[in-house]
């Protein structure tokens, strides 16, 4: 019994690391640019396809393809911010919601058109490996994904807190007008924040590929989780999103283990609805930690 619980918690933590990369991206964009990016999941999907094609045609290991998927998506993010999102920033949030929603719809159906609905998998030499500790079983690919995800989250935290660029981002998040008066160029900061968020989504895609199939709708799974995590962890709060993602991974995993195979998401949504009903500002409080 205890072993089953520990195993479920470990499974939850490992997948929670991936949720964290996606939700930190959502919360970073919300914190800095003040929009909800409904297309975040589709960028995870793009990261997965980039990794899949690099592996299939050039034999590049998914971990090495991090060095391709992250820069490519960073540039894509900066361009999207500069040419699309910037045009709809304003007091009315409806156009922003619809724009990122349209972007998600476009990427989803375009990949359905180009890549077909087939499930694509990558089989590396460590895909089937696992570490056994007593009766506990830890898949190597998931462990690597978790460790790299935590390292990237830590790197983002260091970027936000120690570099001038990071401080400029936090300043723009706290008060855009005052930040502009202090000589911060908001457009540049927004482009970097959007790019960084998409790079994290791309990293999530590359890290998922050794143990998860790529298909056009795959992003939807992760973006729903990310939304729940950013609300739980307070919108705009990076540390909150990280902690909430890990909590949700564990909640989902325990739900699957003890309620039923299709109940993982129900447990997670129950958590969200309770949070919204009793503490709508999330568990984190404050912003941009």
């Amino acid at each position, binding site marked *: 019994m205890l072993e089953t619980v520990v195993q479920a918690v470990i499974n939850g933590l490992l997948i929670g690391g991936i949720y964290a990369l996606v939700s930190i991206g959502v919360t970073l964009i919300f914190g800095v640019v003040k929009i909800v990016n409904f297309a975040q999941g589709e960028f995870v999907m793009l990261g997965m396809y980039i990794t899949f094609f690099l592996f299939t045609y050039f034999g590049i290991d998914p971990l090495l393809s991090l060095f391709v998927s992250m820069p490519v998506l960073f540039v894509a993010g900066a361009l999207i911010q500069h040419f699309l999102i910037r045009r709809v920033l304003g007091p009315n949030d409806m156009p922003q919601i619809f724009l990122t929603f349209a972007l998600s719809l476009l990427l989803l159906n375009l990949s359905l058109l180009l890549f077909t609905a087939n499930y694509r998998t990558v089989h590396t030499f460590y895909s089937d490996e696992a570490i056994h500790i007593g009766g506990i079983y830890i898949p190597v690919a998931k462990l690597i994904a978790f460790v790299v995800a935590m390292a990237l989250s830590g790197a983002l935290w260091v970027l936000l807190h120690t570099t001038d660029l990071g401080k400029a981002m936090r300043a723009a998040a706290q008060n855009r007008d005052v930040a502009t008066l202090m000589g911060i160029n908001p457009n540049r900061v927004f482009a970097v924040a959007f790019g960084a968020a998409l790079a994290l989504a791309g990293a999530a895609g590359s890290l998922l590929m050794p143990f998860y199939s790529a298909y056009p709708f795959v992003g939807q799974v992760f973006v729903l989780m990310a*939304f729940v995590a950013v609300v739980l962890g307070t919108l705009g709060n990076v540390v909150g999103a990280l902690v909430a993602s890990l909590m949700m991974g564990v909640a989902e995993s325990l739900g699957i283990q003890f309620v039923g195979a299709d*109940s993982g998401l129900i447990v997670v949504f129950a958590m969200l*609805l309770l949070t919204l009903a009793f503490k709508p500002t999330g568990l984190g409080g404050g912003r941009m930690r």
Partner: protein
Amino acid sequence: MAETNKWTWLALAVLVAALLMLPQVVKNAFALDIFIRILLFSFIGVAWNLMGGYGAYTSTIMQIDFNISPWIGMIAGGVVAMLASLPIGWLCFRLRGPYFTIATIATAQALMLIFLKFRDLAWGAEGTTIPNLGSSPLMMQFETKASYYYVVLGLLAIGLAITYRIEKSWMGYYLVAIGEDEDAAEAIGVNAPRIKRDIYMISAFLTALAGTFYVQYIYFIDPATAFNFNISIEAALVSIVGGIGTLWGPVIGTVLLETTSALLQSWLGSTTGGIQLTVYALILMAIILWRPTGLMGMVNEVLQRRAQQRKPTQARTVL
């Protein structure tokens, strides 16, 4: 002013006559199917949200288990949808901005998952087919597509009439005030969460009616159809493209999108998955970036410009 009113009424009369005559002129069942879908989606677009599923399920359960006519089931479904909208409204309308959006999407997903989960309740994930009775107008089943067309045309007329009445009532003005600035509206005594909840209930009722019709029209119900995300997307799209918060916006939006989709299907065949929504997404992005007020906004701009051009000439004749 009186003159423009006369023209509006004349145009409306011509439109109604044309819509009533359509099945007599168009005998092609495929074409009529497109028109039925256009009307249905403009109806849902007038009152879009996820409540269609409740209406569809209520009326179908009443029909299959208790043999009650969908005409009655439709109203019951509307009431059930209104009741179901209460907790969602209570939960979501206290929230604002991004919290509201995320909460609504998550609640909708959770409700669909719960329906999928409880298999014993209402046939579970597999769904069920509606018994085909041939011609039975009392059970909302007809032999000809033309009859379905008139039913959905009637529903659309009801939906438009209710929306028109709301737009012209105190509730409509309150809604405009909330839309312009929620804080300012609340400061002068508008109970914003209550107004939003009431509108949500009305729209839940209307959408539930559409849900019943849709199930009767396709003879099949399962959670994936009843709570179909694509229907929600399509309903949302027609409202946005047509112009949100306008009476005729969803109707214009539906005509544009359904016509585009029919043309795409006849050009490319239905083999290429994804092409239809790819084109929808591009249209949507173009509208948001260049015409955020939708097609209705464009129409209004043109009308205003013409009215302004007319004014000086009228002034001259008076002088």
